């Protein structure tokens, strides 16, 4: 006991570093964030309920969740293929491709927004051929989904890569030498092993997508009831000095984000338990 204590007290500076950490956290994050539930509580139940059940607000929530879900599906399908290819196969330019995966993290969202809009607008590189097939992308929910696929792409790939790296080829070999077909190995060993990380990546991408603003606002078209996302509606309310309206919408969004955060923590614990086993 005494040895344990002294090994911890040899290093100085706990009080000052911890004190500064907690103070900075409180001033920058906790106190400002606390204003949101306080303001929500202050506006009264009726105002709150009237705001968040307004048809225009409900339409924006529906659009936000539908497009975030659709984007998660696209990344859920292609993310594992990209991660698998990058970890397991050798091909020219693999390292460059691996580095570029993080582009959506590094690129300012406004740049992504105007670029995707220009590409998918009716006269754009990709928009023109798509429009010829009767599939307009920019200024429709499909366009919003495209932007969210871009934003969410690295989450799924980066969640899966270390787990695929960790997946022991010898386990697959053992299954194969015991007579399993490749499809059986994939279905019975690879997929179950990757499942927690895959879900974690999807949840992270989804959580990012429901709050996303910069990359979406240009391509969305922002028509009330049709292509108006919830974060934009918050800004619209603020511009009309309707602080309560903005706060009510934000409070609902923030609550959903926290539930997702808890779910992600659970998934990550599950995933970590898998890998360390």
């Amino acid at each position: 006991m005494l040895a344990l204590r002294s090994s911890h007290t040899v290093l100085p500076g706990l009080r000052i570093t911890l004190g500064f950490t907690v103070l900075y956290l409180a001033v920058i994050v906790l106190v400002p964030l606390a204003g949101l539930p306080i303001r929500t509580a202050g506006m009264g139940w009726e105002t709150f309920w009237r705001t968040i059940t307004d048809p225009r607000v409900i339409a924006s929530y529906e659009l936000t969740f539908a497009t975030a879900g659709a984007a998660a599906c696209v990344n859920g399908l292609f993310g594992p293929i990209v991660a698998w290819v990058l970890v397991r196969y050798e091909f020219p330019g693999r390292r460059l491709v691996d580095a570029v995966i993080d582009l959506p993290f590094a690129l300012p969202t406004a740049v992504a927004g105007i670029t995707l809009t220009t590409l998918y607008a009716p006269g754009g590189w990709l928009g023109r051929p798509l429009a010829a097939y009767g599939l307009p992308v920019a200024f429709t929910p499909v366009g919003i989904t495209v932007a969210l696929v871009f934003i969410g792409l690295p989450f799924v790939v980066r969640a899966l890569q270390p787990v695929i790296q960790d997946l022991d080829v010898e386990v697959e070999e053992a299954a194969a030498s015991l007579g399993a077909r490749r499809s059986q190995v994939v279905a019975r060993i690879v997929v179950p092993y990757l499942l927690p990380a895959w879900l974690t990546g999807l949840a992270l991408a989804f959580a990012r997508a429901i709050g996303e603003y910069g990359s979406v606002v240009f391509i969305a078209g922002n028509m009330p009831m049709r292509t108006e996302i919830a974060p934009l509606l918050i800004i619209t309310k603020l511009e009309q000095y309707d602080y309560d309206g903005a706060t009510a919408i934000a409070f609902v969004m923030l609550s959903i984000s926290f539930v997702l955060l808890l779910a992600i923590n659970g998934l990550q614990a599950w995933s970590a338990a898998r890998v360390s086993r």
Partner: protein
Amino acid sequence: MERRAGVAVTGTIARPSAARRVADPPLVRRALVGIALVFLGLFLAVPLAAVFAEALALGVRAYVAAVTEPYALAALRLTLLTAAVAVPANLVFGLCAGWAIAKFRFRGRQLLTTLIDLPFAVSPVISGLVFVLLFGRQGLLGPWLAEHDIRVIFAVPGIVLATVFVSFPFIAREVIPVMEAAGSHEEEAARLLGASGLQTFVRVTLPNIKWGVVYGVILCTARVVGEFGAVSVVSGHIRGMTNTLPLHVEILYNEYQFQAAFAVASVLTGMALVTLAVKTVAERHIR
């Protein structure tokens, strides 16, 4: 990398047939690589090319003019000023949090680690909103600020605060695991040999965690420079005054000055590419 090579070697030497059977068939390999490259090409390479193509659509002279125009330079200055405050502030915080959390055990340590990640769960727009609720005209401190003629919202302090908020976790969350992995033995030895606390930190700890710090700083800088949603809420978009580079891109784009918008955007894209390059180098050193 090393590990995979090792596996491959034992596979080929000990069980050549098993190694061959476990690999995906060449056709599947080629198909998967093809699908992955087409998907990434469509979503990453084509947009990247489009930024530069649009930026140079009217020639080099128009490009230079758009990038060196006074409002663009003012936006660049404000972006750099914001970075000059936000990155060092979050760096000091990250190092303090890292030292406290990685080197000591105390009650609430897990909770503290979770709370540091909090800004990641908050939409950029909401990150801006919370500061409007505090400092805005109808905000909690609004009347007091108005009385003393202090402007936070629609002014530089609001932009800096919102940016510090959104980039808050980046350095801490990279530094903490690297410090944890380095352990405390070297610091304890330095202390016992008579080094002061600060000497120990500068001479022993910092060299050990240097690439983790570089990694965190580069991620934080990228977010600070590129932040749009939060800054958009608190800025007021006053040209030459409260316009950062991403906001300047937005204004130009909404005025149909597409080439100028993409010219400024290409500068930000260049910064993003530098970020990716430094990040790749730092990752190699951390592993």
